[in-house]
């Protein structure tokens, strides 16, 4: 999408959002004002926006990673949940100084998400099954498994909610700004974006992934093993989303709760597309969507616009951006 048509599209979305606010009986100016104030109005608001940016950045990078390799990973949500579950279990049971425990918790999250991604990757690589259908199903299975475990066998004694036992304070991610929920997870996400940008642009592995996505037939003739690439890409994509789940557990909730994600894995698809599947532009897109996420509650409280209007607009954005040509686009292959 060129800059000009992008601006027109953004203006249309803003107009629709204003219309929705008017339908809800609110003054659109007051609605947008409350949204921006809630997201950027002070140190506390800005830090919360960055918390949301971070939460979106991991699954968005995961989606972009798979899409670049020509794989439709619609399953970042499920991978994030399984990653969070693994991290929550590791964090609650493994007590060690933070310098040891935190890497273990994050690795557990990446492992969980990676395993979940690998299931879809295996179905694709080994059986030619559609990763779209597989990841859609795995999202729901992840939610059911998590719900079963934390309400049933893994439910922490003396805890009311559907959650695991809390992590010891020593295992919490260090906070960047005292008194806020902004942790080093932001730095980790930014480093990951920079790293992925480098991998795509400068490494043989990144080239192979892009080739498999852009021109699978040519890639195969050039000796790239498409099956192996599909499995590796889905696994790593899942691991990135799972790492994001782990940072939510160790940085924000300090335990695994079934309400870990309000749909970050789905919004991530919009973020990845707005960012043009380019890791560095995705950082900016994640910040923009972070503003929507963190400002929507203030908008609801002050301007009486139901916060769900944000999901509606995000959905519209995805539909509009789906017109982008996906080079690896093909049938669903099942």
């Amino acid at each position, binding site marked *: 999408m060129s800059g000009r048509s992008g601006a027109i599209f953004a203006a249309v979305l803003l107009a629709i959002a204003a219309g929705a606010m008017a339908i809800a009986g609110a003054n659109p100016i007051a609605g947008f004002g409350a949204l921006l104030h809630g997201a950027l109005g002070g140190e506390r608001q800005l830090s919360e926006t960055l918390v949301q940016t971070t939460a979106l950045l991991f699954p968005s990078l995961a989606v972009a990673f798979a899409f670049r390799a020509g794989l439709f990973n619609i399953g970042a949500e499920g991978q994030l949940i399984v990653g969070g579950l693994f991290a929550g279990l590791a964090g609650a049971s493994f007590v060690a100084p933070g310098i040891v425990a935190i890497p273990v918790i994050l690795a557990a999250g990446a492992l969980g998400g990676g395993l979940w991604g690998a299931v879809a990757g295996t179905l694709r690589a080994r059986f030619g099954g559609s990763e779209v259908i597989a990841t859609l199903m795995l999202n729901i299975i992840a939610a059911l498994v998590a719900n079963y475990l934390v309400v049933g066998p893994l439910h922490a004694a003396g805890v009311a909610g559907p959650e695991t036992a809390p992590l010891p304070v020593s295992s919490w991610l260090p906070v960047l700004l005292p008194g806020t929920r902004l942790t080093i997870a932001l730095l980790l996400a930014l480093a990951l974006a920079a790293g992925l940008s480098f991998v795509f642009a400068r490494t043989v592995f990144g080239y192979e992934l892009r080739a498999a996505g852009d021109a699978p037939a040519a890639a195969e003739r050039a000796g790239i093993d498409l099956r192996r690439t599909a499995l590796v890409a889905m696994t790593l994509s899942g691991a990135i989303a799972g790492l994001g789940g782990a940072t939510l557990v160790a940085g924000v909730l300090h335990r695994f709760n079934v309400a870990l994600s309000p749909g970050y894995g789905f919004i991530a698809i919009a973020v990845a597309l707005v960012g043009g599947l380019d890791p560095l532009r995705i950082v900016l897109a994640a910040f923009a969507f972070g503003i929507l996420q963190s400002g929507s509650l203030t908008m609801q409280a002050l301007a009486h616009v139901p916060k769900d209007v944000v999901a509606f607009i995000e959905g519209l954005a995805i*539909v509009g*951006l*789906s017109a982008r040509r996906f080079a690896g686009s093909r049938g669903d292959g099942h």
Partner: protein
Amino acid sequence: MGDIAGFLQLTLVKAAPLIFAALAGVVCERAGILNIALEGGLTAGAFAAVAASYATGSPIAGLVAGILAGALLCGLLGVAATRFNVDQIVAGTGLNLLAAGGTAFGIVVVFGAPGASPEVHALGTQGEGVLIVAALALALALQLGLDGTAWGLRLRACGENPRAVLSAGLDPRRIRVYATLLGGALAGLGGVFLSLGELDLYSDGMTAGRGFIALAAVIFGRWTPLGATGAAIGFGALSALQFVLQRAGVPSELMQALPYLAALAALTGIVGRARAPKADGVPFDP
């Protein structure tokens, strides 16, 4: 005997919305549109039905509104996929998010409080029964229509070889749009069944992934109306069994997960090689 009759009845009640949505999936996919917005179609239909019944006091108006809402949502996918060559999977994901956000927003705007609507005039037990019979009748009609009519041949050709349809002087893109409108109407009807047939209100998230179970039923039923209906009835029976087995200590989540696990199994081909229409999900650009 009473228990068995009750179980069969519950099976049909649980299966009906899945049948409508699965038939929607079959119609769209056989025409070459991979419609993962079935969940959104169910949501839109269920919500619009309750909103219209609330506004007019007539559940029949609700029924019509639900069908139209489903057709509108999935028709958007059809138009976007044929006129703007969007990626169907990404657009479908967007439509699901749009429907979830739009209805959550709509609950507050129409009914004044978040979460759920008040009780409205519903179709009642009789209406529920009529819709179940309609679902089964539609399955048979679609099977016969797809197999034995010129309409069915054209629609299937769009899903296998749209270029041939063009050579025959027909516009495959137009046929695909009509297929998504018909599919969307069916998905909307599934939503109507949920909100005005089985219940008499709309609540957030009440479709609970049925649109995705329907996608699984389509694969299991090998893209045929009767096959998908059979799979939907099987999944309905699992859902009905859940109430029985839960009392015996089987975790309900396991029962709920079975349709999705079955879909994963179908992808491995162990239940026999299932083949999607050749041009399923492939944009047509003459």
